[in-house]
C-alpha cells in the first residue's frame, strides 16, 4: 500500500489540464505577418468566455485581427468585411459542441475598420445581458447585447471609440454608482506613418522604446447608455505608459477598486482609487512598478488575486524571457514584496515569455494554481539569441501552499500563445481555459476530474452593478474579487469559482460594492449558487 506521502506526490504529478477538441470550434486568428514587421502583427489577439444568452452555458468570443498589405498603403483596409477576418462568437450547445453564431448575432465584420486586439465583457446597462467591448487599432467597438441573441454596435452613441492603439480593457465600477465604467489600456503612440523597420542583417519587430508612450483611457458610465471620457479629470491621463494589461482589485482594503496596469519597458502603474473620482499612481512606493533589481520589464499579462489565501490581493505580471515573471505579494499595509523567487515562479519562468495569465484553482484543492500562455514576441528570436524559442507550451503550475510546482499539460506542444480566458465550460465544477494563438487556431484546455468539491458564485447586484464587479467574496477562508478583467487582451467568466477540497459545504461572505454585507451559511458544495444582493 502506498504511503500517504507517496500518494500526495502522485497526486501532484497528475495532470491538471488536458487538451480538448470540441466540435464546431473552427476559429483561426489572422494577423497577416508582413516583411515590414508591423508591431501590431505580433501582439494579438484576445478571447472571452461569457454566457451571452443566459442559458447557463459559457460561450466563446474570439477577436480577429485583420489583413495587412505588404507594405500597407493608404487608405488602410484590414478586410474586416471578409468572413476570414471576422471576430467570432461561438454559442455552446447542451452537448458541449459549439455553433458559430457570429452572423446571426450581428457581430460579422467590424463596424469600423479596425485591426482587432482585445475584448472586455460586462453588463454596462444592467439589463442582465453581458455586453462586449472590442479593442484594436485605430479604435474600439462597443456591442450592446440586445437580450435576444443579437448585438448592436453602439460605439458612436456610447462615446467609447477611443483612438490610437488600444490593448486590454476592463469594466469596473470605480465610483460605486452601480454602473460599470470602462478602462482601456493603450500601448504605443504608433500608426503606419510612424512605423520603422528595425534590424540590420535581418529585421525584427521594433522594441517599444522605438515609439512614444501614450496614456490610457477611463470612461465614466453616465447611466443612460453613454460614457464620458474622464481620463484627464481622474488623473489617469497624467501618466503615459506602454500599457498592455489591466486588472482591478482593492489592494489596500479601503473599499474602493484600484487599477493595476502592466507596461512594456516602462514602470507599471498602480492607480490607487482616492474615492473622489480621482486616482494616484502609487506603484513605485508600493513596490510594484519595477522588477526587484529596479528594471522596467516587458509587462504584458496581469492578474490581481489572492494566490496565498491571506485575504490580500497579490499581483502577477508576465514578462519576456530573461526577465522572469513578476509576483508581488501584498503585505497588507499598502506595500508589496517581490516574491517571484521564494514562490518558485522565478525558476519556472527564467527563460520564458508570458502573455495571458491567471490564478485559478484547477484541481479544487483550495489553492489557486497558475496558468500562463507563452511565446516570445519575436518570431525569429532564436536568431537574436539561440537560447530562446519563439513558440512555447503554456506554463501550468500547481500551487502547493504558496509554492509553485510545474505540471505538464499532455497533448500541447510549442505554440504562439497570447490571450487566455478562464471559466467552467463544461459545468462540471472544474475551470477550463481557452488560449488564443497568434495566427492560428485556439486551444481549449479542460481540467482533469478529481474528487474535490467546489462552489461557483454568480452575483446579481441590485444596488451595486448587476454583475457585482468589485464585490469581495470569502469562501471557507479563500478570497475572490468579482471581475471579468485581467489576463491579456481577454475576458474571463464573471462568475467566481472556489475549490473546496474535501468540504461539502461552505460559508460564503460577500462585501458588495454598495457596502452591503451578506453571509450565507451551510451552502451546499458542487453547485453554482446565484446570490442576489440584499
Amino acid at each position, binding site marked *: 500500500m502506498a504511503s500517504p506521502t507517496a500518494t500526495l506526490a502522485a497526486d501532484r504529478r497528475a495532470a491538471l489540464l488536458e487538451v480538448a477538441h470540441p466540435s464546431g470550434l473552427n476559429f483561426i486568428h489572422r494577423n497577416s505577418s508582413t516583411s515590414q514587421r508591423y508591431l501590431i502583427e505580433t501582439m494579438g489577439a484576445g478571447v472571452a468566455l461569457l454566457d451571452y444568452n443566459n442559458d447557463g452555458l459559457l460561450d466563446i468570443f474570439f477577436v480577429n485581427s485583420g489583413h495587412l498589405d505588404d507594405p500597407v498603403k493608404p487608405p488602410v483596409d484590414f478586410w474586416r468585411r471578409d468572413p476570414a477576418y471576422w471576430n467570432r462568437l461561438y454559442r455552446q450547445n447542451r452537448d458541449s459542441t459549439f455553433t458559430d453564431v457570429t452572423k446571426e448575432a450581428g457581430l460579422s465584420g467590424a463596424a469600423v475598420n479596425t485591426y482587432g486586439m482585445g475584448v472586455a465583457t460586462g453588463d454596462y446597462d444592467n439589463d442582465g445581458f453581458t455586453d462586449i467591448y472590442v479593442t484594436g487599432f485605430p479604435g474600439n467597438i462597443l456591442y450592446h447585447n440586445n437580450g435576444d441573441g443579437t448585438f448592436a454596435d453602439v460605439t458612436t452613441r456610447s462615446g467609447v471609440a477611443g483612438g490610437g492603439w488600444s490593448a486590454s480593457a476592463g469594466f469596473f465600477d470605480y465610483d460605486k454608482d452601480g454602473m460599470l465604467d470602462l478602462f482601456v489600456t493603450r500601448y504605443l503612440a504608433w500608426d503606419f506613418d510612424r512605423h520603422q523597420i528595425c534590424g540590420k542583417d535581418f529585421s525584427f519587430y521594433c522594441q517599444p522604446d522605438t515609439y512614444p*508612450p501614450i496614456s490610457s483611457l477611463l470612461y465614466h458610465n453616465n447611466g443612460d447608455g453613454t460614457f464620458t471620457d474622464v481620463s484627464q479629470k481622474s488623473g489617469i491621463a*497624467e*501618466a*503615459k*505608459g506602454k500599457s498592455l494589461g489591466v486588472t482591478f482589485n482593492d489592494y489596500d482594503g479601503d473599499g474602493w477598486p484600484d487599477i493595476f496596469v502592466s507596461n512594456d519597458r*516602462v*514602470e507599471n*502603474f498602480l492607480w490607487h482609487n482616492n474615492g473622489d473620482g480621482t486616482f494616484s*499612481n502609487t506603484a*513605485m*512606493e508600493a*513596490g510594484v512598478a*519595477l522588477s*526587484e*533589481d*529596479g528594471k*522596467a520589464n516587458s509587462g504584458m499579462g496581469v492578474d490581481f488575486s489572492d494566490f496565498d489565501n491571506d485575504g490580500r490581493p497579490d499581483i502577477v505580471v508576465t514578462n519576456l*524571457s*530573461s526577465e*522572469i515573471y513578476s509576483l508581488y505579494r501584498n*503585505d497588507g*499595509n499598502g*506595500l508589496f*514584496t*517581490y516574491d517571484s*523567487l*521564494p*514562490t*518558485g515562479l*522565478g*525558476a519556472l519562468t*527564467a*527563460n*520564458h515569455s508570458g502573455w495571458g495569465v491567471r490564478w485559478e484553482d484547477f484541481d479544487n484543492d483550495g489553492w489557486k494554481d497558475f496558468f500562463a500562455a507563452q511565446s516570445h514576441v519575436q518570431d525569429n528570436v532564436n536568431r537574436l*539569441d*539561440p*537560447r530562446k524559442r519563439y513558440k512555447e507550451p503554456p506554463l501550468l503550475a500547481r500551487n502547493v501552499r504558496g*509554492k509553485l510546482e510545474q505540471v505538464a499539460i499532455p497533448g500541447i506542444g510549442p505554440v504562439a500563445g497570447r490571450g487566455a480566458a478562464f471559466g467552467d465550460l463544461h459545468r462540471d465544477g472544474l475551470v477550463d481555459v481557452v488560449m488564443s494563438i497568434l495566427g492560428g487556431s485556439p486551444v481549449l484546455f479542460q481540467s482533469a476530474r478529481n474528487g474535490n468539491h467546489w462552489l461557483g458564485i454568480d452575483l446579481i447586484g441590485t444596488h451595486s452593478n448587476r454583475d457585482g464587479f468589485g464585490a469581495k467574496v470569502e469562501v471557507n477562508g479563500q478570497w475572490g474579487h468579482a471581475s471579468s478583467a485581467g489576463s491579456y487582451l481577454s475576458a474571463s467568466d464573471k462568475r467566481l469559482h472556489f475549490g473546496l477540497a474535501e468540504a461539502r459545504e461552505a460559508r460564503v461572505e460577500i462585501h458588495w460594492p454598495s457596502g452591503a454585507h451578506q453571509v450565507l451559511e451551510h451552502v451546499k458544495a458542487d453547485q453554482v449558487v446565484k446570490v442576489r444582493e440584499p
Partner: protein
Amino acid sequence: MMAVFICALLAGQVARVSGTNTAEYHLKVAEAYVQKHNYDQAIPELRLALKLKSDSKKAEGMLGEALLAQGYIGEAIPHLERAQRLDLLGIALAEDHHTAQAIQTLLAALAKEPNNPDLLFYLGKACGFLSKSSFGRLVDVAPNSARAHQLMGESYNAQQKFDLAEREYRKALELQPDLHGVHLELGRMKQWAGDLEAAEVEFRVEAKLSPGDGEVAWRLGSVLLSEGHTQEALKQLQRSDELRPEMIETLYDLGKALEQENQLPAAEKAWLQLIKLGPHTPLAVSAHLELSHLYRREGRAAEADSQLQQFREMSKTKPAD
C-alpha cells in the same frame, strides 16, 4: 602655404639658438617638425643631434617616437629603451610582437598613467595576442588534452554555439574530472539558458572542487536564491561573503536572501556595504531601490524617499510622464 608657415616658424625658433651646427639647434628644428607630425623631416635632424651629442636622452626619445610613427619599429625600440620612454617602448614592443616584454613595459607605464587610452589599448592588444598564441600552441602541442577541450568550449561559448561548447567542456571533464572552472562555465551557460536546476548541479560540483572560491559560492548561492531555496542560498552567500568580503555581487544577493528571511537589519547592512564598496555600479542602483522598499516596510518613510530619490537619480528613470 604650409612650407611658408614652417619656414617662418623655424626662423623664429632657430633665431633663439646660437649656432646652426649644434645638437641643440638640430633638436629644436626636429622638435618643430615633430610638433607638426613631419616625422620624415624630423628624423635626419635628430640623427644629426645624436651624432653631435650621443647621450641626449631627449633626442633618443624623439627619434624613437618619430621612427615609431613612421613604422620603423625595430629601429625605434633601442632609441626608446635608451630614452626610457616606457609608454612608447611598450607600444613599439607590442607592435613588434615582443608580447611578454610589451605587457611588462605597458603595465609599468600604466602605473604612471592609468587612464592613458593608447596604453590601455595596446595592453589589451598585447594580452589578446599572447592569449591567442598560447592557446594556438596549446592546441598544436596537446590537441586532445583536457585544457584544449576546455579552450574549445570557451571559444564556442563566446560564439554562442552552446551545444558545441557543452560537448567540448564535457570532453575536458572526461579527461580530467577535477579540472577547475569547467563546471563553473557549464553552470553559467545553464543559468543563462534558464535551466536553473542544471546550473545548480554544475555549481555544486565546482564548489566541491574549489571550496575556497568566493565567486563559485556566490554563483551557487545566486542560483539557489533564484530557485526559491532561500535558506540554503543564504548559507552559500554568507560563505562567499566571508571568502571575498569586497564582492558586491554577493552583497546584493545576500541582502535579498536576508530580506526574504525577514532579517531586515542584516539585509540593510549588506546593501549599505555594497553601496559603500561600489557606489557608482549598477548594483548600487538596485541596492538603493531595495533599501527604499525595506525602509518603507519598516515605516522609515523619509529614508525610503531618500533612497528612492537616489535610485531615480542614478538610474535616470523618471516617474511616469
